């Protein structure tokens, strides 16, 4: 159980960040545990970002991009998809539950979908123990 998890959310500028903005301006309530990092395209998210987030103590990492076919840069979200799937295989080998990493497509008009996603993901992460990764890295035995 993790009452107050830290979740890093990478949101792409054109779709998902705008969608999150819409949730905000519409005064939709959603769990406050996410820390948003805005990138121009979900295709900018490289494995190193996700790994670094976990290393620094994130309990969960969320990546959001434009729906397939709608990417502002045409194919960036597909690059993100491929990296995400390979990352899942990697973190599984590293003993990190796959539930901690999630990828969803959120469009600029999907404010309520975004709020719903954040709540759902936060619940999932709350159900897991706090991530041991940062502690493991800082302690040698």
């Amino acid at each position, binding site marked *: 159980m993790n009452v107050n998890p830290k979740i890093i959310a990478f949101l792409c500028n054109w779709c998902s960040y705008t969608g999150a903005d819409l949730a905000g301006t519409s005064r939709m309530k959603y769990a406050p545990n996410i820390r948003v990092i805005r990138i121009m395209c979900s295709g900018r998210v490289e*494995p*190193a970002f996700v790994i670094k987030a976990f290393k620094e103590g994130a309990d969960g990492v969320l990546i959001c991009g434009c729906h*397939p076919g709608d990417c502002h840069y045409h194919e960036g979200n597909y690059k993100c998809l491929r990296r995400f799937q390979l990352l899942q295989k990697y973190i599984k080998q590293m003993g990190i539950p796959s539930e901690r990493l999630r990828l969803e497509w959120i469009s600029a008009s999907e404010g309520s979908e975004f709020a719903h996603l954040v709540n759902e993901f936060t619940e999932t992460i709350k159900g897991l123990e706090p991530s041991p990764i940062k502690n493991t890295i800082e302690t040698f035995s």
Partner: protein
Amino acid sequence: MEEKPKIKLAVYWGAACGGCCVSVLDVHESLFTVVEHADIIFWPIALDFKYKDVEAMPDGHIDVTLFNGAVRNSENEHMARLLRKKTKVLVAYGSCAHMGGIPGLANFTNKEGIFNRAYISSESTLNADKVFPQQHFVVPEGTLELPEFYNDVRTLDQVVNVDYYLPGCPPQTERLVEVFMAIVTGATLPPVGSVVGALDKSQCDECKRKKTDNKLVKEFKRPWQIIDDGETCFLEQGVICMGPATRGGCGVRCIEGNAPCRGCYGPPADVSDPGAKMMSAIATMIDSNDPGEIEKIIETIEDPAGTFYRFSLPGSMLRRKQL
């Protein structure tokens, strides 16, 4: 003319295989040049200087120490700290000291996992009483000591400050001689913390295999699943090669032997985690936009963690598997 004093050189090994010491010896005829300029004052594999001799040295007495091998146990750690104190310029020599090396793969497991496999479940081992090696063991005549075996393998710079890194498994001897002569001739050394004895660019720059811009694949292949034509870039044949994420300087020796690079020279400049970079590149090669097909293609990538971090697991961002 006043004779220039010889450099006081030390070579020491932690959890190592001896290959780095062999690489120092592989100077062959240049050995006479080395001995002309250096006094090797500590080298357990070759010389009779003892740990006590190092302890008796004043701090900073040793000019250059080439420390190879990873930090696996308390003896390795003790010697790393001792040599740091007694040395002016401490070089992490070879992949193990630099990034953890092959012994670093033990960070997929821990002490319990290793002890159970080696001493209990090994098929050739009979150990009904579950005897394990002990740090202190009392025998009728006295007490016997062994170093403590840690759970984690560490790089040298995770234990002490390192001045330079000389990468490779082992470092190509020509690179060692270049670095050594630079020190001897008093050339300006790069800033502390630099990687020396290696190129800044990746293996691809040196590699003689033919490359095109098209690296999309519909599946990845194990090296034995292709008939290597000996000329085409491994990645373009679908075989994972760590070349793009690995520094040059080794003379592309494995690729010359028709084996794909496995990354022993560590990441190029400005990249701290080679595995993460490689994953990014490999993912870009997947020729599909459909999640189901992507999944199938990823299934053909065996052991990503052990392949992309073959030599660099302890030095990687996550450092070890969560157990």
